[in-house]
């Protein structure tokens, strides 16, 4: 069974499985935010608002990878208005949500629409592409994959195995061939077969390597010249990673004009707080999140849900569940 499902029953929110949630119905209805709060934050909720409370909140935000400048920036506005600790936490949640753009759907403009997926090594590009292919196929769209990671060992095989499971076709070159021409071929193949979307897998590249960044620029240029249209350039960020995400996002955006972020591995211990800085500094929205290794473990980004998980001790997939549970038992939410 997928990890996602199993962990829902095991982790911090195990008390909120449907049966027990019904039993504690009134408690949830009376204070739905509390259900998400991290123990350390619950502990300060009724404390007198003062330096200790602010330090604890700051500590929590920093340990969610928001980074020093963003944490200070966001706390400033909360500090200006808060009248009590509980109020501070409420305001904080609101400020965090307001600082994240609600997700727009992925553009399918162009025939075919071309989606480039880029990012540093090992963040989850190939897996995300498999998930996207599945999602779009289920929506009735015809998808072609371009295996433009011609560098990493067995990268094409990995994508092919996923494609087989999903039932989509893959266009690939020989090992070491030019990634731009693989993308071009895939687009032309898709156009000839009137497919709707081409999703291009690219090799992981550290943004500081100028030759590899030149290469990805070329992929984009060539894709721009092919039939169809580059509709999305998705940068994959790993929620386990820290402050380097800002540098990744800014360099990739400069190189290939990123349209949105996919934040992966949110089912792990990392909170992905870096996306608040990325949103603020570059105006790049998170569009999708990855919550597991299985083909269906992808979701549209929802700021409230993300923030609730960020302020909790639980991983996001639990928050997803608890949301579902809460809406079942409490129509007020």
């Amino acid at each position, binding site marked *: 069974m997928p*990890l996602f499902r*199993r*962990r829902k029953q*095991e*982790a911090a929110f195990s008390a909120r499985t449907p049966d027990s949630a019904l039993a504690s119905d009134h408690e949830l209805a009376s204070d739905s935010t509390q259900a998400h709060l991290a123990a350390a934050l619950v502990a300060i909720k009724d404390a007198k608002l003062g330096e200790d409370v602010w330090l604890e909140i700051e*500590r929590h935000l*920093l*340990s*969610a*990878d928001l*980074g*020093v400048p963003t944490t200070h920036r966001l706390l400033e506005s909360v500090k200006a208005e808060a009248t009590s600790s509980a109020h501070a936490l409420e305001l904080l949640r609101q400020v965090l949500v307001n600082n994240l753009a609600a997700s727009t759907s992925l553009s399918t403009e162009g025939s075919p629409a071309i989606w480039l997926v880029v990012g*540093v*090594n*090992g*963040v*989850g590009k190939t897996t995300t592409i498999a998930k996207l292919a599945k999602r779009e196929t289920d929506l009735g769209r015809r998808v072609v994959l371009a295996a433009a990671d011609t*560098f*990493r*060992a*067995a*990268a094409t*095989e*990995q994508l*092919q*195995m*996923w494609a087989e499971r999903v039932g989509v076709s893959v266009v690939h070159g020989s090992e070491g061939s030019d990634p731009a021409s693989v993308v071009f071929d895939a687009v032309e193949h898709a156009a000839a077969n009137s497919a709707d979307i081409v999703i291009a897998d690219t090799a*992981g590249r*550290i*943004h*500081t*390597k*100028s030759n590899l960044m030149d290469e990805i620029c070329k992929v984009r240029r060539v894709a721009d010249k092919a039939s169809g249209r580059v509709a999305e350039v998705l940068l994959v960020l*790993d929620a*386990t*990673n*820290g*402050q*380097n995400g800002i*540098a990744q996002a800014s360099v990739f955006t400069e190189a290939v004009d990123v349209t949105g972020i996919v934040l992966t*591995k949110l*089912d*792990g*211990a*990392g*909170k992905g707080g*870096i996306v608040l800085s990325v949103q603020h500094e570059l105006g790049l929205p998170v569009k999708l999140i990855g919550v597991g*290794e299985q083909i269906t473990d992808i979701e549209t980004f929802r700021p409230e849900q993300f923030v609730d998980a960020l302020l909790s001790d639980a*991983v996001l997939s639990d928050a997803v569940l608890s949301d579902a549970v809460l809406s079942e038992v409490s129509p007020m939410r």
Partner: protein
Amino acid sequence: MLSTLTSRFSQIFTRAGRRGRLKPDDIDEVLAEIREALIDADVNVDVVEKFCGAVRGECLTAELHQALNPTEQVIQIVRDQLIAILGGESFSVTYASKPPTVVLLAGLQGSGKTTNAVKLARWFVQQGRQPLLVGADLQRPAAVEQLRVLAGEISIPVYSEGRDPVRAASGGLKEAKRLGRDVLICDTAGRLSIDKEMMREVGRISKAISPQYTFFVLDAMGGQAAASVAESFHETLELDGIILTKLDSDARGGAVLSARETVGRPVAFASTGERLDDFELFHPDRMAGRILGKGDVLTLIEKTEEAFEKAEAEAAAERLIAGTYTLDDFLDQMRQIRKLGPLSGLLGRMPGMSGMEIDDNSSEQRLAHMEAIICSMTPMERFKPEIINNSRRQRIAQGSGTTTADVSKLIREFSNARKLMSSLGKAPRKAKPAKKGKKGGSRVTPKGTVSPKVANLPDVANLDFLWQTETT
């Protein structure tokens, strides 16, 4: 980061005065800045608190050195403390008395386990061992295929079987014994620290093959969670060390401090790129500088003083002018340059040179190669490289794990360097060097004026060939 820190510190301490002990309030003010610098470098907040507590204690008891200003002294304490945590005991292998020596790799998804399993195998081959790789990631699509392709590049056999990773691992152990391979390296699937079932699984793999060494593979770009993740893996597997990957990124790499502090085991290896030879033993001193950040002239000077023993450099210069500059001198100087840390960092600290682009990865690697080549030469060859003929060249290449082309190239570059150096040697000296061993004689004044010694440094930095990127 550090450059702004340094100026902040100077302000604080100018006010605080220069004599006696560091005062608690001043220390706290400085530590507040250090704390932010470390969090920005991705060191876990709890680890930062602990670290700053230790530094505070050190600062309170440290007697102020007359020749040092207090800012320098605190930075020194911070750096020493960082190096102490990152370094501690260093890593060395003791081989199992009854082979094979078993090594297990574990870590989060995408951290670099598979790639580094093969890099490690290559390293063992260089130590004269015969490793067998075991693919026990039967989960991720094409994981075993990836292992096979990479291992194939350096002709190391790979074993894998079926669908059960525990059986595959123990099958691999039997196979290693059958084939008489003396090292077994087991690659495992990426797993989340909070995934109890998968953690139990890797625990079972470990039980099945009783590894001598279990390495936690950690991404240098990792964030705050690195501490808790490392802790979970340590609880399950009793780690013996850490392999730090993706150091070729520009991440400050504070995650390694979190993991190192939490786990209490040494960082054994550093992975600095995707290629199999982008792999080396870990250098705590370089990492400390990296976590604290670049752009700081003061750090450069301190490092320079430590690394670049003036007397040696001058002796070499004299031999150079006398025409007796040998490959031994060349090697010495190269080692000293390497001790200074990544070349880009080095240049980044030079006033006016931060714009220069350097690929640390390839230059580091080139330095390592050059060192290996020179070490494989006889004393006579080092003294008189002209005698290196074809058969000598072949022997040297074999001994150093390089090609004969690499050897020829180095010799060519050496003669170029000799030419370059002698032209520098003839140039009028800019300033008289400070006497060796006298600290404080060549510090940066609060305004950031550069001392004579710094002005001398470009002489070394000018050796272009050290960081020319090569595609070999």
